[in-house]
């Protein structure tokens, strides 16, 4: 029971404990080590004394006390020690040389935004993208260096170096530990959202056979997006991102068949979709859209909601999806968005119209060699009743595909059309 409680507290509180300790000590490594110590002490103490009413406050205080012990041993100046001992929650218990004996005497609600500071610092654009991702997983989600290395298929020493270098740059280049001021915030928020969405997609794209750590990235991303949406109630894109993740995640059980092969949205068993997640995603999205500040994540979530709320594939509101893609391509004019729009238009107005858009895209040359361009063309040709040309296009896609699951899917289509 204690172990379960500590594991739960680890998921819920790790980021907050580390974030607060970084703020008061200014030392990322010390913060992580002391947070780790606090959870180890909790295993022992909670078994003996029971689980505290407010595990987060208990853990933060314990970690802070460990930090004071360590700083004392390193003979850090008295001023710094006083600063750490005072921390910022006024009603906190005075340092008593050990761990807190009373349950939740300190108040951690006075510093609700430490995790937000940590998110913005981890995702600072002056850090390389891969460093932002690794730092976020280590400090906010509490994954070990070994786990992060495994999730991104790199050697542990490589990941360890990557993390150390990023922390060193934060320190030496004086990357500030704060939520950016209002005039910089709009430019910096997308960087945070992008890291969380990347994490989600890494996990989502992993096949069922992939490493559990890798698959777990989606759940971590959802957890962090939930925190972000809570901490940034005035940023509808944060809620939009959470909604988007939930609406995708709701369908994850039906994405692959028993043989681990991809199942298209059209052919998925919709009874296996997670209704609770869909309802939460839709509710979050509706509330975000009410602010009338649409952004790329809200629009993508709206598209996902169109799919998730259609009771069967035939009921999908493709006209609305096509409209949403048009809007999305105004905000983020990328060829991939244009391709998705062509698919939606093809479904709404007939394959011939879709093909026209795809051929225009193909002629522009920007997506040359991209397997989904050929696969999309093939699908539209198939729907248009031109099987010969479809087989040819599926063949092109097969040559360009990057994963086994995709190749298997494309071969199956060719077989269906030629048999």
């Amino acid at each position: 029971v204690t172990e379960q409680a500590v594991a739960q507290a680890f998921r819920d509180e790790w980021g907050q404990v580390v974030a607060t300790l970084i703020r008061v000590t200014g030392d990322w490594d010390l913060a992580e080590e002391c947070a780790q110590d606090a959870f180890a002490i909790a295993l022992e103490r909670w078994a003996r004394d029971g689980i505290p009413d407010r595990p987060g406050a208990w853990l933060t205080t314990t970690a802070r006390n460990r930090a004071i012990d360590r700083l004392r041993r390193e003979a850090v100046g008295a001023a710094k020690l006083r600063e750490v001992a005072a921390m910022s929650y006024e009603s906190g218990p005075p340092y008593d040389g050990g761990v807190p004996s009373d349950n939740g005497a300190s108040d951690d609600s006075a510093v609700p935004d430490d995790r937000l500071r940590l998110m913005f610092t981890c995702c600072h654009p002056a850090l390389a993208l891969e460093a932002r991702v690794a730092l976020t997983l280590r400090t906010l989600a509490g994954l070990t260096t070994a786990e992060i290395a495994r999730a991104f298929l790199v050697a542990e020493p490589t990941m360890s170096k990557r993390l150390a270098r990023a922390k060193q740059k934060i320190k030496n280049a004086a990357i500030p530990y704060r939520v950016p001021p209002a005039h910089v915030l709009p430019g910096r928020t997308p960087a945070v959202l992008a890291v969380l969405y990347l994490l989600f997609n890494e996990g989502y794209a992993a096949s069922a056979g992939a490493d559990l750590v890798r698959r777990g990235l989606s759940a971590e991303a959802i957890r962090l997006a939930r925190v972000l949406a809570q901490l940034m109630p005035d940023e509808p894109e944060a809620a939009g991102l959470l909604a988007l993740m939930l609406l995708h995640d709701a369908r994850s059980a039906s994405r692959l068949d028993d043989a681990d092969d991809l199942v298209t949205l059209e052919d998925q068993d919709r009874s296996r979709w997670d209704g609770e997640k869909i309802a939460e995603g839709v509710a979050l999205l509706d509330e975000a859209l009410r602010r009338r500040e649409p952004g790329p994540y809200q629009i993508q979530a709206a598209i996902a909601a169109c799919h998730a709320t259609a009771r069967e594939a035939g009921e999908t509101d493709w006209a609305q999806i096509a409209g949403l893609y048009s809007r999305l391509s105004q905000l983020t004019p990328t060829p991939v968005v244009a391709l998705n729009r062509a698919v939606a238009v093809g479904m709404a107005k007939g394959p011939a119209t879709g093909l026209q858009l795809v051929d225009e895209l193909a002629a522009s040359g920007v997506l040359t060699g991209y397997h989904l361009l050929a696969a999309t063309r093939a699908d539209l040709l198939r729907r248009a009743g031109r099987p010969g040309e479809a087989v040819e296009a599926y063949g092109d896609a097969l040559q360009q595909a990057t994963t086994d699951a995709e190749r298997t899917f494309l071969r199956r289509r060719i077989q269906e059309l030629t048999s």
Partner: protein
Amino acid sequence: VKYLLLICGDESAEAHANDGCEGWSEEMLSRGVLEGGAGLAPPTDATAVRVRDHEVLLTDGPFAETKEQVGGFCLIDCEDLDEAIEVASKHPAAKYGTIEIRPLLGLPPGTL
């Protein structure tokens, strides 16, 4: 925190050598951010010096032959990297070249 801004550009940047800073220096001086700096003569005027086995070795030209070369530098003192980024992005050379922000190693107080 002190940072060195290395103002870099390719050959085409030489056309801007005598442009001046369009008021950037004045603004940063009055803000108390700018501590010094200068534009540099072209890399063709550079001499690289190495001492190996007590022998002074000289080569004509910059120490590394790259497309982009340092054309000037400024020493600034900022609150943090965000301020340094804001200061660097306002420099007119950022529009045609690249500005590298390098934090100085921590030195004992009063050294600089």
